[in-house]
């Protein structure tokens, strides 16, 4: 009897051993096959496209969400009904997994609708080639709003984003420059946002231009010159005030009587706007004077006043 039990146990053990060996072999085979297949897939799938401008800002989602909540909670509580999560999702959907040279205004339509808000009359402040100065001005004088002081502009200012057809759908390495393709996510965004900002303006609007730029204070190729002035609504906007600012101690390339300004004035008058142009609008000039206190233009009392 013990001999029979012994041989049965041995057979059991052998079966067990063979079973384990077969399982191990199958496992090894599976691992080898899997690595071969994925390796093959990696060689076949396209890598991300390479562009000349900086890539998507890292932590884009956190920055956008934080800015959105910051804007509606801490700065503009009257916009409390805005859904920041939805706004972020609509921005992401506009460009993720898409070829960054194929972006259309329709891609941004949901975002524009979710994030737009009315602008009080007489407060719209447009600008061209005066980015630093105009934003220092609106930061210290909350009576005026540039596009970058609206929710849309505030969220998008100084950051970049673009997608790519391959995973993860966002390109953090590089994004297309305008010279590489015009229908890129950034350019399309700013064109649409600028158009809507102009359409929303009412009453008296202001524009800050740079009288120290060689190429002229007003240029038809700028967003202001190509999009904003043509989207001001003559039924809502009554007057356009131009503030022509020259750098303190800088070149006085152009003033209100200059060529490009005359061209701007004629374009606007043709659309039935009343125009007033002021050289070196004093409240803004005082801000420039903070950094040039000893210049003659920054004397407290001037003979001309």
């Amino acid at each position, binding site marked *: 009897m013990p001999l029979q039990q012994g041989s049965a146990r041995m057979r059991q053990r052998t079966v067990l051993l063979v079973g384990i060996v077969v399982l191990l072999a199958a496992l090894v085979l599976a691992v080898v096959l899997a690595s071969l297949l994925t390796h093959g897939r990696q060689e076949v799938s396209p890598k991300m496209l390479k562009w000349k401008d900086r890539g998507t*800002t*890292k*932590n884009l989602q*956190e*920055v*956008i*969400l*934080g*800015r959105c*909540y*910051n804007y509606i*909670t*801490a700065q503009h509580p009257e916009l409390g009904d805005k859904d*920041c999560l939805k706004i972020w999702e609509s921005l992401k959907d506009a460009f993720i997994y898409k070829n960054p040279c194929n972006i259309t205004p329709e891609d941004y339509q949901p975002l524009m609708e979710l994030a737009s808000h009315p602008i009080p009359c007489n407060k719209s402040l447009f600008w061209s080639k005066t980015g630093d100065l105009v934003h*220092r001005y609106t*930061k*210290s004088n909350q009576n005026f709003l540039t596009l970058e002081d609206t929710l849309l502009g505030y969220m998008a200012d*100084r*950051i970049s984003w673009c997608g790519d057809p391959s995973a993860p759908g966002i390109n953090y390495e590089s994004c297309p420059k305008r010279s590489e393709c015009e229908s890129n996510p950034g350019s399309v965004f700013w064109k649409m946002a600028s158009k809507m900002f102009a359409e929303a303006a009412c009453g008296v609007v202001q524009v800050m231009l740079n009288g120290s730029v060689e190429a002229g204070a007003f240029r038809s190729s700028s967003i202001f010159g190509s999009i904003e002035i043509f989207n001001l609504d003559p039924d809502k906007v009554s007057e356009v005030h131009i503030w022509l600012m020259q750098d303190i101690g800088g070149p006085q390339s152009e003033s209100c009587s200059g060529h490009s300004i005359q061209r701007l004035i004629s374009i606007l008058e043709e659309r039935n706007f009343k125009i007033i142009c002021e050289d070196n609008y004093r409240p803004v000039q005082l*801000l420039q*004077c*903070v*950094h040039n*206190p*000893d210049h003659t233009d*920054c004397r*407290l009392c001037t003979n001309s006043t």
Partner: protein
Amino acid sequence: KWKGEGTTRNLESIVIGRCYDYIRTVNPAVGEKNCSQIWEAFKNAFINKDPCRILPEDYELFINLTFHTIPPNKSLFWENNQLLVNSFADRGRRYMSLGDTLFGFIGDFLNWCGQADSPGLDYESCPTTMECENNAVESFWRMASITYAQHSSGVVHVLLNGSAHGGAYPQPGFFADYEIPNLQKDKISQIAIWVVDDIEGPDIDSCGTHTVKTLETRLETLGYDVTCTDNHK
């Protein structure tokens, strides 16, 4: 319950967002920071705690995680003139005020306090400093001011409001109580005081008079080289 405004809604998203905004767009020179960790450290200073028992030291980990050096000659202290300071400092490019540092940037214009019960934050109301001194926001700014002063060096600037009722140099005040005592004498070459009046405002205080004189004397007694300018252009 308390007399002050409650905790700002979406505080977590705002704090984390501001943290990334700062390191990615405002001042990338500070390098990588772990913003989730920073939020945790900030929150743990006051969440689920008695809102009247928060001390500056409770923010020590937060300060350690958000710390970065302040460039010499760029420190700008101020009292009663925040808008002017912002346009003068030019977002940290010309001067770096406390609000232009990462730790100051995160907390600016926000409000917060904890409570013992869930969810641990009180969104309805928070104690004012009159109700209790050791509240979350007051202790935050004390800690931030102390740190900012300790790491300032070179020529240090102080912007005071000559039109402020009660004087340009308020006592008690953050500058008087938390910043001056924490300035490092061996790192500071000069203290330049600017007294600026509001446009068309009253000229209540100026260099050499009233509270400004008190400040000048105090700093000189401490051994600092002090200059003072009125309505610095």
